[in-house]
């Protein structure tokens, strides 16, 4: 299975991934409308590593774990791993109990801005392509086979 990998040594912390994640998950699919008219939580987000010498960054989103805690924690069956191994959240079934947020060891699931469902990376399967990967200006986010062993 291909997963999104964020390569820390390349990440610039520009947060374009967040911008495009919101766009891909908006109703309008229009970048300006998505931001000005819709209120969406990004499913990918940049974390900072602050050291004395510099600030570096990495992008983080759902790892689509082989043994996903969130799926087991889900009380409604909304969170599931599909046949392709993608962990998805069925927004119709989600009751936003936050059990998944409680157990995700990466902190990769967030409460949606509407408060009614949770937001997480779905590899943009409905959009057709992982927009964060496509739009990352420095190839810091890549869609790679899961046993990719490059230094993060």
């Amino acid at each position, binding site marked *: 299975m291909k997963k999104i990998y964020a390569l820390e040594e390349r990440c610039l912390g520009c947060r374009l991934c967040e911008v495009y994640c919101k766009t891909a998950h908006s109703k309008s699919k229009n970048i300006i409308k998505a931001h000005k008219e819709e209120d969406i939580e990004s499913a990918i987000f940049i974390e900072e590593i602050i050291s004395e010498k510099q600030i570096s960054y990495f992008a983080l989103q759902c790892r689509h774990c082989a043994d996903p805690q969130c799926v087991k924690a889900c009380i409604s069956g909304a969170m599931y791993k599909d046949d392709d191994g993608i962990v998805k959240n069925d927004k119709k079934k989600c009751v936003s109990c936050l059990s998944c947020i409680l157990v995700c060891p990466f902190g990769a699931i967030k409460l949606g801005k509407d408060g009614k469902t949770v937001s997480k990376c779905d590899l943009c399967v409905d959009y057709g392509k992982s927009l964060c990967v496509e739009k990352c*200006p420095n190839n*810091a986010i890549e869609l790679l086979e899961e046993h990719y062993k490059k230094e993060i």
Partner: protein
Amino acid sequence: MSLDFNVPSFEVIRNEKKCIQCKVCIHQCSNMVHVYDEEDAVVYSNNNKCVNCHRCVTLCPTEALLIREYPLEFRKNTNWTRQAIKEIYKQAQSGGVLLSSMGTPKTFPIYWDKLLLNASQVTNPSIDPLREPMETKIFIGRKPNKLDFDNEGKLVTVMPPQVELNVPIMFSAMSYGSISKNAHEALARAATELGTCYNTGEGGLNKAFYKYGKNTIVQVASGRFGVHKEYLNAGVAIEIKIGQGAKPGIGGHLPGKKVGEDVSATRMIPIGSDAISPAPHHDIYSIEDLRQLIFSLKETTRYSKPIFVKIAAVHNAAAIASGIARAGADAIVIDGLRGGTGAAPTRIRDNVGIPIELALASIDQRLNEEGIRNSVSLIVAGSIRNSSDIVKAIALGADAVYIGSAALIALGCHMCHSCSTGKCNWGIATQEPFLVKRLNPEIMYKRLVNLITAWNHEIQEMLGGMGINAVDSLRGNRLMLRGIGLNAKELQILGVKHAGE
């Protein structure tokens, strides 16, 4: 601090309808032009800090940004231009020498644009490079006058060392220090993939890059930074840098703030110390001194590597080149007036030297007349912008060209002329880790490969059009050139006829 008379050079225009306040521009600008105002929830811009490097414009996801020249009008005066006035304000404020980066912006004639190429029609078929072989391989190095074979047909002449290039294009000297490690890696990897060479510049060679040795030219300049025996043997050729087109007669200066741990180790100088290359080599005060250096380098490398000598194109370039050839150099590099630099005094950059086209034509002619043209390779640099510039340079007599600025532009340089600040937003002319990161060698070396591959295709197309299927037959083939809008003297120096003749 008293009032600064200078008004901003650029104005940042933000289309509020399009701005989604994603703050990408804020995160990306190392000059801190963009600022987010929490209270009013808007992003505003400090025009006076903007260098117009286009980083924010390029990364803005909604095309909300535009940068234009600051629209303040100065009273029209051909003599006292905006530029002239601003420079005086600046110097009156700072008391210092004006510094500039990249090549001169002044309006010197660009002879490349006044030369036209020939193509075959009827009497001679043009050759389609997609269907027929089209050769661009060249060899840089001293060639013997003739080859001797014994009675059994065995070659008895000992060939001097040659650098084999698949394309007649190399990446010119840009030191690690003046440009980033990632930029160097991109150049090195691209050169390797293309089968050409990049040049270390005078900053030494980082240990990590020794593996690209087969595609590396190591430079020895007046500061001797990073020069040791292993370094000299690390590449395929050694270049002695006497001068640079952008600043003939001037040394170099890498500010201490760019000398971090790694640069310091590579250059073999203390961390944070200014790296100052003297104006002359203090062991070369004459042509015979140069000969000594050439041969001491040959000794060090056991005569296994060609020695290049690089000079700025100056008035007497032809005679100097002849002297260099006779001093034992295997290749002469001539860097023209419009060549780039990381930093040069503005007055030097804009006023010293001669255009590369004229220097090349007269040097090639001179070496021909002396019957020694074949014994030395000629490499030209300084303002090669595209494949037709290269074709014209070769037709004027060059063996190969060096590209510097063009390579950097491929890596993202937007010619903002601010290299000397060390805050290059594109990760090229900087040592700041968070900026260097922006130049991902993995992406960027491919862009260089693309550029040179594209140019090589174009060169092949142009060669084919002329009915030539090997670049060998273009060198010095000035019949393939015609001048346009040039006066008799210029035509004479260039050794070409006027269009229509």
